[in-house]
């Protein structure tokens, strides 16, 4: 049964520990920025960060030294270019070296799906003819026991903690998600602990039928957090701030400017509400 009484700060300090493997999922949509910022504020260290598309939130966490390892399949600023903090970590080990476990989207989707199903590995037709398997021992070939055909296997991903942002939850902790899903549901079902921030707590969700719900007993805690996905978006609540994503390119290009920005807007704010307010008073770029 999901706990509903925590603040985000409480929930992060209770569930996210130094050294944990954590997945903040959401594919472009519903990226849990507020939770990522809180992890930075609490200076949690040595994390194994897992995410198909690291995006700005992981650029920030990597740049602030939270990560020892990154499992991912596409590490860019979508539609803009590089994640400069990720690049600086990989190219120059700044602020610390980060171990890379690199997949394709299809491979990582299979790994999350296997994790959600508590299978030890996922199967796909993938990676054929590419250099990725030579650099990732987690990509292997196995034979079909019926036809002898060779297919690709990847080990299941089961994060210690998966954190999602969603639109709504009810007072039992059932979480409702609308719009682009990515592998968010698989990442949640694959996790040992699931933490969800939501735009809104409602007394009762409308009848769902085939709509996307993560039932309450899969979820450890639900925390209301308005604007918790910003600068990503929450379908039906607010749009993606594409201008912020573009502005991030220059903020993050330089180490000092990045640190200064993080100190002002993340470390210098007590919570996500203050973070959002801080962007109102100073231009994001």
């Amino acid at each position, binding site marked *: 049964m999901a706990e509903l009484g925590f603040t985000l700060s409480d929930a992060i300090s209770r569930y996210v520990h130094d050294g944990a493997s954590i997945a903040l999922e959401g594919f472009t949509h519903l990226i849990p920025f507020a939770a990522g910022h809180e992890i930075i504020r609490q200076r949690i260290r040595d994390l194994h960060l897992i995410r198909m598309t690291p995006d700005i939130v992981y650029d920030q966490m990597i740049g602030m030294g939270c990560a020892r390892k990154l499992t991912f399949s596409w590490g860019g600023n979508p539609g803009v270019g*590089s994640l400069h903090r990720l690049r600086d970590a990989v190219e120059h080990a700044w602020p610390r070296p980060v171990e890379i476990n690199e997949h394709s989207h299809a491979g990582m989707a299979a790994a999350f799906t296997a994790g959600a199903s508590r299978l030890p590995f996922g199967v796909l*037709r993938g990676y054929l003819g590419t*250099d990725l398997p030579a*650099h990732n021992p987690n990509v292997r070939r196995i034979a079909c026991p019926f036809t002898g055909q060779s297919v690709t296997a990847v080990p299941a991903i089961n994060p210690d903690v998966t954190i999602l942002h969603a639109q709504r939850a009810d007072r039992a902790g059932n979480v409702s998600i609308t719009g*682009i*899903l*990515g*592998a968010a549901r698989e990442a949640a079902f694959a996790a040992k602990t699931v933490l969800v921030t939501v735009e809104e707590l409602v007394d009762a969700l409308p009848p769902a039928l085939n709509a996307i719900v993560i039932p309450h007993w899969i979820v450890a805690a639900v925390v209301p957090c308005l604007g918790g996905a910003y600068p990503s978006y929450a379908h039906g609540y607010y749009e993606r701030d594409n*201008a912020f994503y573009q502005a991030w390119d220059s903020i993050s290009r330089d180490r000092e400017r990045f640190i200064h920005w993080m100190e002002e807007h993340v470390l210098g704010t007590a919570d996500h509400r203050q973070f959002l307010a801080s962007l109102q008073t100073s231009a994001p770029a």
Partner: protein
Amino acid sequence: MITCTRNEWMTVTAARQLRNDSVCFVGIGLPSAACNLARLTHAPDIVLIYESGTVGTRPNVLPLSIGDGELAETATCVVSLPEVFSYYLQAGRVDIGFLGAAQIDRFGNLNSTVIGPYENPAVRLPGAGGAPEIALHAREIFVMLRANPRSFVERLDFCTSAGYLSGHGERARLGMAGGGPRRVITDFGLLEPDTESQELRLVALFDGVGVEEARAAVGWPLAVANSLRKIPPPSEPELAALRALHERTEAAHARPIHVPS
């Protein structure tokens, strides 16, 4: 006489390759512009799939990211990422995969992972994303990439997505399901694989561009087809549609976002 940029010409050329009954798996950036231009001009029924799981999407403006809300709102349906990769792409339900890359070689193999050695890269690029399996499974691959000797290279730093590998049927011998890169659309014209060697050959040039420009932009000795086709510049309706699409897009992306607080 219409004046247009090479980017525009390239996008229009790419759009023209698409048919009304195609099902396309679309990468972000230039491929996304080309596919939507096709949809807004001669291919209104084309099915566009983005890897965010938005199937049959009809955005009014170009998405900045692969997962903008616009793509979901205008889609036939939105499925999970595992599903779009397994039930659609891997299942062979995609006609055309439309890719970009940082580097391409003469056999249409693509690099979007690193410049320099993988373990110690000079430039760490974003990486694979959906590309390796798009390149593997789509019935045909179209590649869009501006040409210069650093992007059209003799030897990839890293093979992220397989084209014809070393050519001469190696792709088929490996049992790769899709047909491989059938067209490379670049900012001077069009390359297609030779039927025997599968090496990319220059088959068409933008009207007014000479073979020497193409040779200079390509980092390997470029093979040239016996008869080169000429690619006419964008027509007025094509250019008007493309520019209107970009204008709508810029206006939409500049609109301030209201975040609840």
